[in-house]
């Protein structure tokens, strides 16, 4: 298993919020923009890759004990998303890459 900090460094992810959660351990990832799909299928310790930026993303991340959220293609979290991310210590990370590319890189990294 890897920490978020190590993953963020290897993949060049920006920490957009929730800095204090960067020592979390990552068990895998899930890619979806449908909230019920994530609710039904993501697992504790996963990184959730999405373009959804609103606060409900953090509600789900917290309920599912996810390690972090990656926002793709330069999307920025809403203000209340940032607040909840900081409170819950679940980081929101940013990349300019599209979901396909960042997922491929994360998969490669976690596979070993």
């Amino acid at each position, binding site marked *: 298993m890897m920490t978020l900090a190590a993953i963020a460094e290897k993949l060049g992810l920006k920490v957009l919020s929730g800095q204090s959660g960067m020592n979390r351990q990552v068990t895998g990832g899930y890619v979806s*923009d*449908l*909230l*019920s*799909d994530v*609710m*039904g299928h993501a697992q*504790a310790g996963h990184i959730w890759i*999405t373009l*959804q930026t*609103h*606060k*409900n993303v953090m*509600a*789900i991340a*917290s*309920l*599912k004990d996810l390690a972090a959220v990656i926002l793709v293609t330069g999307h920025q979290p809403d203000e*209340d998303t940032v607040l909840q991310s900081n409170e819950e210590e679940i980081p929101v990370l940013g990349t300019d890459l599209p979901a396909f590319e960042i997922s491929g890189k994360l998969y490669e990294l976690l596979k070993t």
Partner: protein
Amino acid sequence: MNQDSQSMHFEYNVEGGNFSRAGYASSEIKKLLKQLNVDMGIIKRTVVGCYEAEVNVVAHAYTGTIYVDLNTESITIRFQDEGPGIPDIDQAMVEGFSTASSKVREMGFGAGMGLPNIKKNADQMKISSIVGKGTTLEITMLLQ
């Protein structure tokens, strides 16, 4: 809260239309079950059911109350709302069926997976609804 050695009861309010609060009650229920040392696997399934049912009140109804009853054998959670009701429950249960608005869909809600998710994760699920009045959904998790 009212508590004796056999059973406990809790209530939470849900505000229809208020998406910024969606998931708040589910998070409180999750904390409660953790405090009570409920098995982590049961908590995880309960959380999925609670969240979907809470979001349905937010997305589809006007106001609702969640009643949580716990005893040594089971957790029963009843989501009772005042709202438009569900005209055809069998159709609502079909994965992918949704009457959510396009604005709600853009946020990633309204995939029509909520009720199927609840069914998959709950040990028992009951829905009753009166069109024009409201909907009551009850999930039961068995502890033994």
